């Protein structure tokens, strides 16, 4: 059972898919007036610390950041350096994702500067939280869920500190130029719209007007210019190469073949695949099939990579809509190709809106650390109970017409299919197909697909059969020792709590 209170606030337990409908109005930030801002439009201020002081940083406030600089982010840690110098305590850090480069925040979690992190947790931070060392309880949300939480007023951002690869003095920011260009700033939109105060941090101050204005200057309080906001080689994702593993290539081949035989892959389809090595290989095979058939995908939703850009350029994809760019080819394409559009996650994923992109997608390729025999999926924790990944857009993407998880049946003796997942991040009714190197399981609810694949030569099996196969190879496993203490809450796309993560006992 999930608790009804997290961090002293009442929360609603998961009600089922499509069951929870909130009422009321959206949250709104206070009304500003142009009287308080310089007539010449110049909002540049000396240092980040000065800006934080002028924004009235004090104990208990919520600070938000975006993650477009990924593991090359040089800005986020300095917020807490400044806060610690100011002696401020109990802050809530609300990033759209964190990375191993944010390990220094641990010392501020230890000394009380930061109370908790509400956001995706990676690497050392995840480990710290799992061991029960964080004062507050972590809250993990999907990218769309984060947007929903801000918009619904569940999370009130006091100060948004938004790194911008280029900005003018008024705060109009974008990401297509500058030494730390990262393509798009799709995760920053909600933050600047809803935060009480907005600070833009750039290392590339350009003349007004800086177009396009992904961050809109009339939402911005201060602009801070520093030497360097990011390390370019760490900004691009580490995973944007097609896998070389023969086993994963086999999974990718099986997936593409399945999509073709089941006629999910068709002329004009909408598709999305991640930037992992296996997903990229699937994209490559889909590209080949489309070329062969003379078909094209009408729309690909990013994070985009050079492989998707290649489809756009070779005419097997008509449009790319992008909330983030995973590699430099994608960054360049956004700047140069008129059919490669910047598209905020706000519009793509938000569940509390008048429809969104996710439910329109025909093909959705996702990953998972575990799935269970009821097709429930886990992306946040490992089988040893440790919180080691963010949810990303994963929960939001489950709304697609056909959700496919290409995953190995076991990883270094750790079976992927369980009786019960360690943490439920996604309900089984939303996951349609699991493709492993040893067989493909179709969710029994998808009788249409089962019927269609009846005479296929592909190895279609039940999920129980796949689980038994893995167990025969790896041997029966024991359960990890977990305490009752809740260290993190997993939110569903509608703001309800779908599961919690408990402290691991070593």
């Amino acid at each position, binding site marked *: 059972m999930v608790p009804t209170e997290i961090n002293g606030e009442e929360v609603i337990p998961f009600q089922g898919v499509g069951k929870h409908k909130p009422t009321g109005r959206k949250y709104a930030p206070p009304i500003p007036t142009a009287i308080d801002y310089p007539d010449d439009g110049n909002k540049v201020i000396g240092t980040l610390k000065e800006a934080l002081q002028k924004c009235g940083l004090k104990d208990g406030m919520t600070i938000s950041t975006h993650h477009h600089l990924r593991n090359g982010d040089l800005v986020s840690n300095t917020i807490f350096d400044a806060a610690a110098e100011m002696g401020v305590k109990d802050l809530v850090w609300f990033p759209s994702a964190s990375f191993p480069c944010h390990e220094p925040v641990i010392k501020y979690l230890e000394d009380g500067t930061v109370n908790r992190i509400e956001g995706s947790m990676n690497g050392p931070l995840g480990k710290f939280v799992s061991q029960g060392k964080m004062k507050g309880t972590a809250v993990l949300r999907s990218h769309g869920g984060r947007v929903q939480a801000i918009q619904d007023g569940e999370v009130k951002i006091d100060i948004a500190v938004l790194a911008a690869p280029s900005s003018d003095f008024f705060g109009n920011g974008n990401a297509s130029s500058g030494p730390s260009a990262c393509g798009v700033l799709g995760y920053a939109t909600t933050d600047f719209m809803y935060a009480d105060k907005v600070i833009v941090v750039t290392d590339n101050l350009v003349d007004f007007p800086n177009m396009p204005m992904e961050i809109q200057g009339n939402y911005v309080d201060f602009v801070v210019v520093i030497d360097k906001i990011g390390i370019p080689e760490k900004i691009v994702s580490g995973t944007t190469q097609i896998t070389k593993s*023969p086993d994963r*290539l086999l999974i990718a081949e099986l997936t593409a073949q399945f999509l073709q035989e089941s006629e999910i892959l068709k002329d004009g389809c909408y598709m999305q695949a991640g930037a992992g090595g296996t997903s990229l290989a699937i994209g490559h095979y889909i590209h080949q099939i489309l070329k062969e058939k003379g078909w094209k995908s009408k729309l690909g939703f990013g994070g985009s990579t050079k492989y998707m850009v290649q489809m756009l350029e070779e005419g097997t994809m008509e449009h790319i809509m992008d909330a983030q760019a995973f590699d430099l080819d994608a960054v360049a394409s956004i700047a140069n190709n008129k059919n490669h559009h910047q598209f905020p996650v706000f519009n793509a994923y938000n569940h509390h809106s008048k429809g969104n992109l996710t439910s329109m997608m025909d093909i959705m390729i996702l990953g998972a650390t575990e799935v269970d025999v009821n097709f429930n999926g886990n992306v946040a924790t490992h089988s*040893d109970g440790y919180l080691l990944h963010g949810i990303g857009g994963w929960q939001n993407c489950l709304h697609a017409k056909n959700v496919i998880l290409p995953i190995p049946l076991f990883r270094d003796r750790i079976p992927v299919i369980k009786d019960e997942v360690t943490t439920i991040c996604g309900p089984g009714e939303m996951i349609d197909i699991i493709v492993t190197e040893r067989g493909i399981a179709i969710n029994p609810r998808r009788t249409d697909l089962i019927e269609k694949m009846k005479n296929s030569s592909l190895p279609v099996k039940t999920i129980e059969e796949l689980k038994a196969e893995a167990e025969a190879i*790896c041997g029966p496993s024991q359960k990890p020792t977990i305490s009752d203490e809740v260290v993190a809450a997993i939110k569903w796309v509608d703001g309800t709590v779908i599961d919690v993560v408990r402290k691991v006992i070593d």
Partner: protein
Amino acid sequence: MSPKIATAGNTGKKIRSDCFVTLELKDKGGIQIEQKSKVEVLYGKANIELCKDVLSFYGIENAQLTLDDKGAVSLIIAARIEAVVKQLIDTDKEYLLDFIEENKYFSEKDQLRFSRLYLPGNSPSMMLNAGIHDPNGIILDLEDSVAFDRKKEAQLVVRNALRGINFYGAERMVRINQFPMGLEDLKYLVPHNVHMLLVPKCEGAEQIKELEEKIVEIQKQHNIERPVLLMPIIESALGVEKSFEIATSSENVVALAIGLEDYTADLGTRRTNEAIESFYARTRIVNACKAASIQAIDSVFSDVGDMDALRENVKVSKGLGFEGMGCIHPRQIKVIHESFAPETVEIEKAKKIVNAFIDATERGLGVVSLGTKMIDPPVVKRAETTINLAINLGLISENWREDFLNEQAS
């Protein structure tokens, strides 16, 4: 004094699905086990139980055992512990885990051998998933891919793999060492349903005779009747000259393979992609095999990144009369299968010829003709081979002639 500490297995950053075991025999203090495992949370208890069981099987009562585990499955951990035990005490006892049901199948003398995937005998990580890539055969290698001081531990890994790893129907082959060590390998293989042995550096019929005597001796001890098939590898100038003698040395020799790295070294030349230097050897071996009615199998193609070059290579190989080749990477398998398989035009032509032959036989005609052209018996035979191969590969159905006649009629 005999040594009291022994190690076996592999460790290091890149090692997966393997473990490194250290055993120190003591005079007192009971069994002390220290485990460091990346999967300890899930398999820690099972691993400790297994360690204890193996040590007790060998009657060891006082020892310190360290298991550095990178996600090895039980049959690998067991092999590693047996290896350290056998370095320290003299015993013939074998610690055997279950022989899985899925591995109780056999191979046939003339089955398809387009591809055979080499797996280093002391590197378990590649073994678990080898079969899923659907090679015609897998070769657990005890020879060149295993360092000299690791031969004994590799024997145990290969034995346990033959018993417990499912290769999904692939022909179960092992490349043994050169003699005399190769003869020592046999007791770890013959009782465990090895289908075929690859015999390296084969240079004469007497080698095969010596090998078979030893095999039969072990088979008698275990009441095994089904013969072990043999694929001698010709890797020297002398071997090439003796190829027909080797091909006909036993009815269990079902194929000859050529090993080009060693052969070109023996010639004192360099191996090239064009392979002109080995043209004589290859044609000589193909000829010897055909004369002996066995299969001729080509060497491996070592550039695993270049699939186009591999495809070209297979075409030449097939053109010379080879019926298969070795693979050192799973991605090569599909390319090899596609390239050795008969092409559509070949199959269509073969259908016409075989149909004409059946037709002529049914009508009691002595002469087969297609249109105005007479068809010679060897042409019919080749067409039949093509058709059978196409049926085997699932390229055409067994009842292809019905469809063929319907098409003709319409």
